[in-house]
């Protein structure tokens, strides 16, 4: 069965969700991943949005986290403070999906600007809730377009802290929980070394070579642990296409 990179990405990320996880979603791929996971692997997981929408029915795909579709049929319609207090709640295992313009080898993210902060070449939207979930969630999964200019040695601006400078540097900042679990790109899945907290290539998608990954990554990367990803199953694709995004707004 044929499938697109977007579908592979949504499913790769969805597979990382465990049943019972409380999933912080944005728009786009993250909502696909979260809702696919809920329907396929993790029926007891709960999807919520930084805007305060807790477990909406999502009969249609939201185009923004403030979309009315994050409110409809929800368990709670609350607000930002309630939502971030869920992200950081020690009783919950919270998984957050983020995207970024730049990422470094420790999974730190830039969603603020390219160039000097005070007079940027390109200005992006800013942190929104990204810094907060990177600081507070149990675990972060990041979606990236796999390009050399995005996988960089040094971020132009560190909007959101991943493993900071590696080893226990994150914890020393005062961030006692969380960190980045995985990076899902259009080529591969990357994870982080348990000790050094440096990124490594964990999976390459079927049809992608390790070299493809290396030449699109702006820093040296450990590829010794790479395996090939399982391709999407028919069931996964069917649910994704027919139930999760039938309007084809993201796929």
């Amino acid at each position: 069965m044929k499938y697109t990179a977007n579908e592979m990405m949504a499913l790769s990320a969805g597979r990382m969700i465990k049943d019972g996880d409380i999933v912080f979603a944005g728009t786009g791929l993250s909502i696909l991943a979260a809702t696919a996971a809920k329907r396929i692997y993790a029926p007891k997981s709960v999807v919520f949005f930084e805007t305060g929408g807790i477990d909406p029915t999502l009969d249609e795909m939201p185009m923004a986290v403030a979309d009315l579709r994050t409110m409809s049929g929800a368990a709670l319609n609350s607000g930002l403070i309630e939502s971030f207090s869920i992200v950081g709640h020690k009783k919950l295992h919270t998984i957050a999906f983020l995207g970024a313009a730049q990422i470094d080898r420790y999974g730190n993210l830039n969603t603020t600007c390219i160039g000097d902060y005070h007079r940027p070449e390109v200005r992006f939207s800013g942190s929104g809730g990204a810094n907060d979930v990177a600081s507070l969630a149990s675990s972060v999964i990041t979606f990236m377009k796999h390009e050399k200019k995005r996988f960089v040695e040094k971020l132009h601006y560190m909007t959101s802290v991943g493993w900071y400078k590696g080893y226990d540097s994150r914890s020393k900042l005062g961030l006692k929980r969380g960190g980045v679990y995985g990076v899902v790109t259009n080529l591969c899945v990357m994870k982080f070394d348990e000790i050094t907290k440096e990124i490594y290539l964990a999976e390459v998608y079927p049809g992608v070579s390790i070299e493809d990954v290396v030449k699109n990554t702006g820093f040296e990367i450990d590829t010794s642990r790479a395996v090939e990803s399982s391709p999407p199953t028919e069931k996964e694709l069917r649910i994704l296409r027919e139930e999760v995004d039938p309007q084809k707004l993201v796929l």
Partner: protein
Amino acid sequence: MGKTSDISDKVMTVEEAVHRFIKDGIQLSIGGFTVTRNPMAIVYEIIRQKIKNLHVVCHSQGQALDVLIGAGCVKRLEIAYGGNGRYAPTCIRFRRAAQNGEIELEDYSNYQMSLRFLAGALGIPFMATKSGLGSDILNIEGFPKEIRGTGKVAKEKFVVMQNPFNDGEDNVVLVPALNPDVALIHAQYVGEDGTVRIKGLTFADVEQAKSADVVIVTCEEIVPTSYIRAEPNLNSLPNFFVDAIIKVPYGAHPTACYGFYDYDPKYLNMYRKMASDDNLFREYLEEWVFSISSHNQYLNKVGAERLFSIKANPVVGYAVGLDRK
């Protein structure tokens, strides 16, 4: 008892509200979030009245902020996010102003901004959070040093301190309270007693309103007191926090209002296109703001057919099957 306040001195037009409360240089807090419940009717009028040098404070703002910036009303901005969801992942005029150094800009995160409004609402000087530790949000200051502590600019962007209730190393970030001069809120309902009810997600609107000196509320409907008081658990603000009440149906267009109407994809796509070019953007402002004399005229220009196409299904709260591409 049951006697309720008289709100006749608070009910006014958008023209009056802006004239009375929105002055050059004030600190302005804008409610809503990206494409939802932006107080557009008031914002259009601020532009028409040529208010300048605004110091805007918000968490995630979209359309309202972008038009204000584009019209040159904003001098200073504290913000976590400037975007319109998938209709403009980064707001166009916001991006341009930041890149051209046309505004003084200070970045926070959504939680930090929300907590700053909460601190202001509670009358306390700061809130503690773990958000921001290690990041450039803490390390890089956007505002020039000389404006710190002047006007409504906090003396410090942040203070990092050791948690005094813990012997171990345990840093927390203190974020300073916000107490804006004016907050703009768009709600579904205001009662004839002045009670405000926001339906669907409230974002940080309640905190924003309670932290401000003056609160201007536009609403879809003014409803009988008996209706709004039949379910006090649904209400968001008592009347004594509200200074101006204006009934403006579709007052958040082209952004959405739960239970009333969806965002307007055609308008947002048109806006993105026109905002991307300086000349086109001038045309946009002329056509959709300056040459418009009332919100009813604005709605006529949008057209009944379009307004019906985004009308919310009353059960699910949004426009089912709306073409949103």
